[in-house]
Structure formats: structure tokens, C-alpha cells
């Protein structure tokens, strides 16, 4: 099915606008950049109960202790596979 030219142009404009907003959002310096970031943030935020990316492993990650990583690297902490 051939796509209507007018509809296609509209889609092209809206896709270009989305990408322009993503670009400004990544700059995040001027008020305009921040407005784009705010809009992108809003458009991509899902209610917590629908947020498929929530994951306890990731959300509760606290990282590592620098000294402990040093000791681990030197083989001072036992490693059992």
C-alpha cells in the first residue's frame, strides 16, 4: 500500500523534531536544552507499576568499596567460583 505523501511528510517532520529534542536534551546547558530534557524525561517516564525496567538487582546496587577492590585485585580476598 502506497503511503500518502502528506502523511509521510508529517511523520518526517515529527521524527526530525523528536531527534532535535533528543539532541538538545543531551546538551543540557541552556534553558531550551533543559526544557527539551524535561519534555523527553516526561515523555519517556512510565508509572512505576508499568515500568518494565525496574529491577531490584540494578535499583539496589550500591557499587563497591575502593579499598576492597584493591585487596580483591591483589588476591587478598578469597574468590570462589
Amino acid at each position: 500500500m502506497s503511503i500518502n505523501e502528506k502523511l509521510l511528510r508529517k511523520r518526517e517532520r515529527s521524527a526530525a523534531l523528536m531527534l532535535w529534542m533528543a539532541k538538545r536534551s543531551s546538551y543540557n546547558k541552556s534553558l531550551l536544552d533543559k526544557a527539551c530534557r524535561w519534555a523527553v524525561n516526561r515523555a519517556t517516564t512510565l508509572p512505576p507499576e508499568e515500568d518494565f525496567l525496574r529491577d531490584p538487582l540494578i535499583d539496589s546496587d550500591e557499587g563497591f568499596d575502593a579499598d576492597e577492590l584493591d585487596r580483591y585485585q591483589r588476591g587478598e580476598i578469597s574468590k570462589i567460583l
Partner: protein
Amino acid sequence: MPAAPPFDPQAISDAKFEERAVRPGVTTKRTICQTCDIACSVVAEVEKGRVVKIRSSDNPIFRDNICMKGIMAPKGLADPTRIMKPLKRVGKRGSGEWEEVSWDEAITDIGERLKTIIEKHGPEAWTVSTSQWNTATDHGLGRRIMNHVGSPNWISGVALCAGNTAAVNRFTYGWFPMGDYANTKCIVLMGHNPRRHSWTPMYNFIRQAQARGAKLIVTDPRRSSSAERADIWLPLKAGSDAAMMLGWLKVILDEELYDKKFVKNWTIGFDDLRKRVDEYPLERVAKLTGCDPEMIAKAARMYATDGPSIIPWTPITDMQRNSTSGIRLQSILRSVCGYIDVPGGERLEGFNPDIINESAIEMHHLLSDEQKAKQLGSDKHPAFTYRGQEVFREPTKRVYGQEYANLIMGCHMATPSATFRAMAGQGPYPVKAFFFLGNNPMMSYANMPLIIEAMMNQDLIVAHEHFMIPSAQLADYVLPGDSWLERPWLMDSFGWMSSVRPSEKAMEPPGECKSTFEFWKLIAGALDKPELVPWDTLEDFYDYRLEKTGMTFDQLVKKTDIYFAPPKFRQYEQKGFATPSGKVELKSSILEELGFDPLPYFREDPPVDPKYPLKLFTGVREDGFFQTGHRHIPEMRKRHPAPLVFVSPGTAEQFQVEEDEWVEVENELGKISIKVAIKDAMPDGLIRIPHGWWKPEMKQGTGHLSGALKYADAQLCRDDEDYLDREQGIPHLKGVPCRINRVKQSEQSDAPASEMEPAE
């Protein structure tokens, strides 16, 4: 009507969109995770000169793109077994006897030995196996040096994973498209199953699209988690993807669901395609795929009428004996339905004109025709070799401004199987020097026994690695590599997309670990060609590449997380497509010229030996690992303590095996040990094994190879002609005949591997 969102400029400029708070003494770096090949933009938190945490980006366009492998990187890369100094083999090859040497000593000796091999056997006797997905800072410098020296024999895992797809996509419309997930209305996943912890950004895109109302069609023999969420799931027979797409085309053409205007103006070969498609009525397709004809038709209609639709890249069609036809059929479906280079469809982005791209850095024009003709495998299976791709020079220059486009590094490769045969002394000429970087070749290509034989027949093997992986155990030199936490990076998507992302260096490399950039700089010097890598540092090199943007690498980092030009759609209306005809070639003039069927087809399986009644599906990744890596990380191993073969309850009953039982999976090529996991999501008659198993704590060296000889799936991956794709020569990993053997349980141990065979 919902109320308009409150718009408060102060709230917008607030710290809400600044970086998340960190503990005192902690600084942050915006970096790109390179633990797998999807490159999430993430943040590294640094304390006392060490990366202590990896978290997702603060930029909402990269929201929550992080997985368990990413957060584990600071520990995985601080592993006590990481190689910190250059190692030189002192005993017999594979003896496991090494001495520490300086980089100077290693590089001088490597240079001398490589020059001797080239003098004696010619430059084609030097082969390199790597991929920029793994090494990142190669940026085409390896190819650049090889092209100057005169060797065409570069191989890569991308030969059966995305690189070959890129090369084959060019046959139809001259570039490799990227799906526009943000605007699409229908996604087709062909056996691919991105998950929360595997290919997270793709999972994110797909779920976001579904949340917006996009349809999802999944073709997969097993009931994957994506299949469970799909609008239509077609449980096809493994390896029958090409037949399925021929069936879709039959419906789309018969019911006139295609984009007539686009087909008329922008394609050639439609009538021939129609004749070929007519050979595949739905009853035949149903028989070939094992799917209900009504469901096949329903899926075809959904793809063609609920669009714009996308068929994202999938490794499944990269790894089967009908790979070329499968990839071509995806390209043809996109084209006839009018989904090429439109919003919500698949964009042909082209190079970013502001960046010196990796294809240009590689300097393929310098390799002589005579040397190109020697590229291994190009005689029989030329699709992604110079022989199959040289014809794109003129059209690519016309459309994209330069002759060579080595998309995903996959467009000018030697074929791996032919290369290993030559290395083993079974080729047209000797290959005696083998370098591999960030790559475990023994376990990453088909026919592991041949690869071991090939490696044992080398005069010089150099590995650039983090750990003593099984392949490195057979090397002459193992040189310590840096990691993504320890270097800057300019990520340019390897020509797939025109965007560029910078990644900051977050900490110093430990010990004497060096980047791939530094490795190639040293090799260029050792070959008396220091001018090939004239930049002192990676940052200098990036400043050179970014010159046209008017920014240095540092300035780019400060400015943005991602740099791209405004998108353009339907660019073909100005310059045509980068094919010989300038049109979408439904009937490929290039394949015809090379002596192959110019139209897609389906080659049925060879007769099955009753000794091997099951079909084997391999290449699957577990969430905690990427490729053959990460088996050294305790947290990941706790999740996946042993390789598991997935079998259906029916197959388990047929072979009288039970959950958790150790068995052997065997075929004509070899056998492996593996534990049974019974899954009702698996179809009867098909078993699935994971990719890349070895155990770093097990005995190293020949005869052991840290468990690779016991567990690695590459021992079952055949590369005889029956199980190779004709045009590309890549192996069939999706439906190879095999069987399950019961073994005495006393021969196996459930004890933790670390107690079973201690590390040496």
C-alpha cells in the same frame, strides 16, 4: 481532556536534571559500557582513583540502559587473574610455561618474527582476528596496517554476527539500515530475544514501542519471553526463517499489500521475484516451517498493513545455511512494503560527514587487486569478501561520498573457515602468523578442532587480552589489554548509524595494560611503518577525527552525550540507492555476477542421519555472560554455575534424562558435557545449548584448555559444505543434527568446579 502539563522554567532549569548526587570523595565520568556489544551510555563513579560503581546515564534518552554485567564491571576488571604484564611462552606451545617480559622486548621480537614470516611466505601469511565491538580503540588501525603490508586476511566474529548482515543488506539497497524504534508501529523479532539483562537498550526500545501501542511479531521455535509478549508468535522450525519470509511475501504480493509506487519507481526485478515467490504457496511454507498457514498469513498482513514496521537485526539469520537468502528476504520485505528510509521504518543513515570514519582510516584502496584476490574463502564464498563487495565502490562514492564502506567491519573480510584451513596447512598458501585481539577465536567460530590444529601449526601467535582465555593458552605472546573503564572512546557505531558518542576515561589502566590503539601503534613501529599511526595518544587521534566538527574530543565530551546531524529521510530521491543499478535490487545483479542465484530461495535440510535424530540450536547467551567472557566473576557464576541444555519434557522423556542430570550432546564433529534443564517452552526434537562455556579455574594448556574441550559449543559447530551458507560460507548454528547420550553420573561431579580442578 487532560490538563496541560505545568510549565515552570525554574523547575526545568533545576538540579532535577543534573547528575545524581554521589558520596563525598566520589567523582563521575560519562562513559560507554563495552561489556557487551550494545554500548550503553552509563556513568562511572570514581573513588580513590578506582571505578567503584557503574550506573545508568542521567540523560533521559538513555534512561535505565544498564544490566547486571555492566554493574559488575568494576569487580570483573579488578580480578586477581587479570594479566598485567606481557607474557612470553617459554615451554612448548600450550605448555602453560610463561615468563614476564617488557613491552619493548615483546614488540621487538614480534616485529622481527612477523617480518621474517612475511618475507618467507608473503604478507597474506599474516591473519588477524578481532572486532571493534570488543577492542573498541582499534578504529580500523589494524586493517590500515594490514592493507599497507599487503594482507587481506582479516577475520572476525562479525562474519556470523551483524557484519555479514551489513554486507548482505548492501546487495539490495547499498547500506545497512537501522530500525526507527521511536516511531515504528510494528516490530518483527526473528528469534532474537532482548531482555532486561541482555541487550538492554533494545529491550527498552521494544517495550517502549509496545507501551505506545506498536505490534510485536515473534518468530522463534521456543516460547521466549518476547514470544510471550507478542501479538503473534510463529513457532517455526529452527533454520526455516527464509521459508517463512517467502510465505509472507506470497501473501503480501498476492493480496497486493505492497507499496506499488515505491516498487514501480525504485526497484528492479519485481516480476522475477514474484515468479520465485509463487514457488512458495502457503501450504508448502506451512510444511517447511511447521506453522499454521493462517497464522503465517495473519503475520504477513500485520507486517504489511500495520506499519511502518521494522525487522531489527537478528543473529538468527546470520547463522544458518540459508543466511544470505534470509537476510535478503528481510531487505526485500522492508523494500516492497515501502519501509526504507522513512520514519518508523528503517533508515539508511550513511556516514556522519563531520567525522573521519573507520572505513576511511582503514585505507582499503591501498591493498592491490592482486592481494585482494588472495583473500581466503573469496573463491567459493565471496559475499562479504573483497570479491563480493568491490562492485560497491562506485555506487557508494556516488551516494555516500567515499568508495569503501566497511559497515560493521563486515564488508571486506576473509571467511573464517577457509582461513583456519589455510592456517592448518590445508589452504592455497601457508598462513603462519596469527594475531587475535579481545577475541577468543578457538571458541568463537565453527569447528573448534580445526582451529586448534590451525593454531598448533603457527610460527607466531600474539594475543592482546585481559585474561588467560583458552585461545591465549596456545599463544607465543599474551599482551595485557586495557578495559573500557581505563581509556577514552569515540563510538561511531561502525558505520551503522551516523551518530557519534564520546566515552570518558574513568581510571588509569592497571599494571602495563595498553589499549588496542597503543598495540597497533607499537606494531606499526615494529614493522618500520610508524607513520601509519602518527598520533601520540588516543585523544590526539580523536581530535584529528573530529576536526570538521570544530571541536576537540574534550570539547565534545563537555558538550554532549551524542553528536549527530539532523536526520534526512528518503535520501534516495536525490542520489538513488548505492547499488549498481541505483535502485533497490530485488533481483541482485551482484549475486548473479558472482554466479549465485540472484533471487532468494530456501534450501531444505540434508537427509538426517538416524544416529542424530535431534536438532541443535546454539549461539545462545546467558544474561550473566557475554560471548565467552565473564566466567571469572563469582556473582555471574553463581547465577550460571554450569552450562545447561534446554530440552522439552517430551524430548527428556524420549531420551530418559532428568532435570540436573549431566549428559553428553554429540554430533558428527564432537561432543560436550552439559547439564539438563527441562523447559516446557522448548519444542520437541530441538535442544538449545549456550555459547562459549569454559571455566577459568580449570587446568590450562593443551589437552585441557580450562574446560573448553569439555564444554565449548564450538566443538559441535560444523563447517562442512552441507552446513555452510553458500554465498557467505558461514556455518549453520540453528538446527544441526545431534543426539543426547546418557553418561554415568559418577563420571561427573556436582562439586563446585573450583574444588574439582584447581587453577594453575
